[in-house]
């Protein structure tokens, strides 16, 4: 389908990858592109570990009495799976890898505003990951990724302190990344690049950075208070001091709900880029999509109470949070409709990134709408704490955020490595992931409605059939994720050399060579037209 680009003679051009070799050139780099590669390597490593835990859990749940591990180990497995996947893969994935690489390229800057702080945030991430890995290796933690007190503060005797310290430190890595992006987008845009000529990916980056800046510190202080309570055996969440465990939940979810929007907002940003490029058409309703990103970021801070409808929160507050939770669904709906409308009268091609984008839109619709069940009070009483919730957030995190991340990696792979990946393999992998994902998580909706609670190491007999289906799907999904690892590494050495714009996409990052030189552009580009100007007559010569 896609015609292979004309063979370009490879003259030894200096770019950011071959400008310098050796460990020091990587570990002491301040080039945002190299830091993005460091992040890519470290989060892929964490994804593999988190994924391994998931596979063991799914295999364990084939038998109602639990086939593989002790209940205590199962509790550690789902806790570590949650912590690693959320704090060490999903939250840094798109912002730190694609964001770090693309933000300066997309706005025509030479680098981020604070390159040294950018490298510092990678080191902070690695130190945080080291603490958590120490906890994993030396026995794991079994409090659940939510660390609810009083279990985590007084009754748990596993490595809560080490993991809490790891998550606390990694929080600062995403604070500093958010800070870098906000200052760069405000102060370092190329001449002519007004706010409404920026690609929508940058709007999503800006909205996500707002959440990182405003939410993460509250998680940091909550974890400090938890650690102090564990250390001093006294603290503000301690019931026999008159403290209230619900205050921990309030402060925890104040960050953790907007954190899910950190993951999904950037998935939306990537999909806006993919849908426009692969239908050669301007996005439908640019300003609506841009403003819905920012309004999601703002509204996401008002809705955290829907996690606590059944935990003894007051009924009045439940009503307020329920109404606000319904409102936060509206901007997401607007985005989905705008993407679908973008395809109208376009010229749609089905390369792998587009398959991931279309998969994203469908699964995100499914994931988002099942959120309405949990925002509405009456059904949430029945569904809270069951597998319905597990299915809902996996449809959002795995079905949408990871799919968009893979779509983004495939779309910008020629720009990152200068090589094209084998597209037939990529489409096959996308299909396998789509099928495996649905087979894994759709049965869990039904399990949740039937009332199977989550975090159960063993369960009653009648839930077994659906669990076996889910475990079967998990094995397909695991295979689906391994295929891209193989052919992407293969393509780094053997893939055909990519031109500077293999997809014919608009955007400043496609005007420079791939892989781009260290300073991104020979001379700072001047922007003369709006974003996604595919169909304007005087398309600039690529």
């Amino acid at each position, binding site marked *: 389908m896609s015609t292979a680009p004309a063979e370009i003679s490879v003259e030894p051009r200096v770019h950011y990858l071959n400008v310098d070799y050796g460990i020091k050139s990587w570990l002491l780099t301040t080039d945002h592109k190299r830091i993005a590669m460091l992040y890519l390597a470290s989060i892929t490593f964490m994804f593999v570990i988190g994924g391994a835990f998931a596979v063991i859990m799914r295999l364990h749940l084939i038998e109602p009495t639990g086939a593989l591990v002790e209940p205590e180990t199962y509790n550690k497995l789902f806790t570590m799976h949650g912590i690693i996947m959320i704090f060490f893969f999903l939250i840094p994935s798109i912002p730190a890898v694609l964001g770090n690489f693309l933000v300066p390229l997309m706005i025509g800057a030479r680098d981020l505003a604070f390159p040294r702080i950018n490298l510092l945030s990678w080191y902070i991430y690695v130190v945080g990951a080291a603490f958590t890995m120490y906890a994993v290796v030396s026995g794991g933690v079994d409090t659940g990724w939510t660390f609810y007190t009083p279990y985590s503060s007084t009754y748990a005797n596993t490595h809560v302190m080490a993991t809490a310290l790891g998550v606390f430190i990694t929080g600062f890595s995403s604070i500093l990344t958010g800070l870098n992006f906000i200052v760069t987008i*405000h102060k370092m845009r190329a001449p002519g690049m007004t706010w409404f000529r920026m690609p929508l990916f940058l709007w999503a980056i800006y909205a996500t950075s707002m959440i990182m800046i*405003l939410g993460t510190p*509250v998680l940091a202080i909550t974890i400090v208070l938890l650690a102090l309570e564990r250390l001093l055996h006294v603290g503000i969440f301690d019931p026999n001091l008159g403290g*209230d465990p*619900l*205050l921990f939940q*309030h*402060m925890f979810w*104040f960050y953790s709900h907007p954190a899910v929007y950190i993951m999904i907002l950037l998935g939306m940003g990537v999909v806006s880029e993919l849908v426009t490029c692969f239908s050669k058409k301007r996005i439908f309703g640019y300003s609506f999509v841009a403003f819905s990103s920012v309004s999601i970021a703002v509204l996401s*801070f*008002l809705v*955290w*109470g829907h996690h*606590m409808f059944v935990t*003894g*929160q*007051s*009924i*009045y*507050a439940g009503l*307020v*949070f329920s109404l606000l939770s319904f409102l936060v669904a509206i901007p997401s709906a607007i985005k989905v409709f705008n993407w679908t409308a973008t395809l109208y009268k376009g010229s749609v091609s089905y390369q792998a990134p587009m398959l991931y984008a279309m998969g994203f839109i469908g699964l995100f619709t499914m994931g988002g709408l099942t959120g309405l069940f949990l925002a509405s009070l009456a059904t949430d009483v029945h569904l809270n704490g069951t597998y319905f919730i597990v299915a809902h957030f996996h449809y959002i995190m795995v079905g949408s955020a990871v799919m968009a991340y893979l779509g983004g990696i495939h779309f910008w792979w020629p720009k990152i490595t200068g090589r094209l990946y084998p597209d037939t393999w990529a489409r096959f992998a996308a299909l396998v992931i789509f099928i495996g994902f649905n087979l894994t998580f759709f049965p869990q909706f039904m399990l949740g409605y039937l009332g199977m609670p989550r975090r159960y190491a063993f369960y009653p007999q009648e839930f077994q059939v659906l669990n076996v289906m889910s475990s079967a799907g998990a094995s397909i999904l695991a295979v689906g994720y391994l295929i891209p690892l193989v052919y992407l590494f293969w393509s780094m050495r053997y893939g055909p050399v990519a031109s500077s714009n293999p997809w014919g996409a608009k955007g400043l990052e496609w005007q420079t060579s791939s892989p781009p030189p260290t300073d991104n552009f020979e001379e700072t580009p001047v922007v003369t037209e709006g974003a996604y100007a595919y169909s304007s007559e005087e398309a600039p010569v690529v």
Partner: protein
Amino acid sequence: MSQHIVSPKIYFLIFAALFALTALTTGVAFIDLGPYNTVAALAVAVTKAILVILFFMHVRYSPHLTRIVVAAGFFWLAILITLTLSDFRTRSWTPRPSGWEISAFSPQDGR
């Protein structure tokens, strides 16, 4: 932006004002105003904070972006406090078919 140089005279004036306000708030604490003690203490603290932000931190001479960033910070803090407080203060409201029956106090559920 902060190229604007503020004369030391204004700095000293602001310093004196802050000093006086501190003395004021400490003095007022010794007078029995009932619930207004807290209101007075907070009002003085907010004025002192605004003085420091506007003059010592040059926000008065900075572009609008800095003001928006400062306002956003305090606004988000307000979101956290008000929505959490709304839960703690309304725990003792028990729903009646006819509407809310607000009992003055149910101890552990928060007054």
